[in-house]
């Protein structure tokens, strides 16, 4: 009875995870938590690709997941460097501390 997994359930799970990440980006003021929420969102996008790739039994979904993974690695490296810069300059991780827009 429960043997097969409907594709809609996989896509719904990706949607739930994406909404959780979006809510995290909107709610939190700490830059570190915002970066973690963005990771959740990227992960859910990769999950949607893998679900769709399994649905049609093609490897393309996993390949797009590898590219999402590359993007997440690049984003994490730059984002964490920005976290360190913010903390060195303002001694706080509050994103509102950096709202002065000076060079």
């Amino acid at each position, binding site marked *: 009875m429960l043997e097969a997994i409907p594709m809609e359930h996989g896509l719904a799970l990706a949607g739930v995870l994406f909404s959780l990440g979006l809510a995290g980006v909107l709610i939190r003021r700490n830059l570190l938590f915002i970066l973690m929420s963005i990771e959740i969102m990227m992960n859910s996008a990769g999950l949607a690709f893998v679900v769709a790739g399994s649905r049609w039994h093609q490897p393309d979904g996993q390949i797009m997941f590898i590219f999402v993974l*590359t993007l997440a690695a690049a984003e994490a490296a730059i984002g964490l460097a920005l976290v*360190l810069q913010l903390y060195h300059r303002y001694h706080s991780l509050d994103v509102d501390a950096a709202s002065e827009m000076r060079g």
Partner: protein
Amino acid sequence: MGTALAFYLASAIAVIASARVITSANPVHALLYLVVSLLAVAMIFFSLGAPFAAALEMIVYAGAIMVLFVFVVMMLNLGSAVIEQEKQWLSPRAWAGPAILSLMLLVELFRSIGMESDHMVNTATIGPKAVGVSLFGPYVLAVELASMLLLSAMVAAWHLGRPNDHKE
């Protein structure tokens, strides 16, 4: 029975752990919940017949990227004052509005996906060989572009990570 049970169990774990990430006040606890969430998604990939993606999720995401986050949290050495500040920021007034908006978007997403389950996922395994053949066949240009993206990210991280000598 096995794969479907693994899928739904891992889905529940992933959703609960992600919810704990965005509601946790302690950065280290949030990071550990995020690792649990990523491992649950790796289990989902495995149950969907994508073992190569599952292995990459574990090694690269839960292994490398999360360790990078842990290093940064350790370097910042955030104390209990930060946790108190986070608890203060997490008041219902702050999170009610964004939570309602996200929930509305989620309901809309559910309606557009449609919950009639007549498209079954094919859980037959797509192994690393098929992925590799396709990755270095039709997608080889995208692989080169991804390598350039990683190179530019490295240059940017090096540039941003320098100790700033110009004190304002």
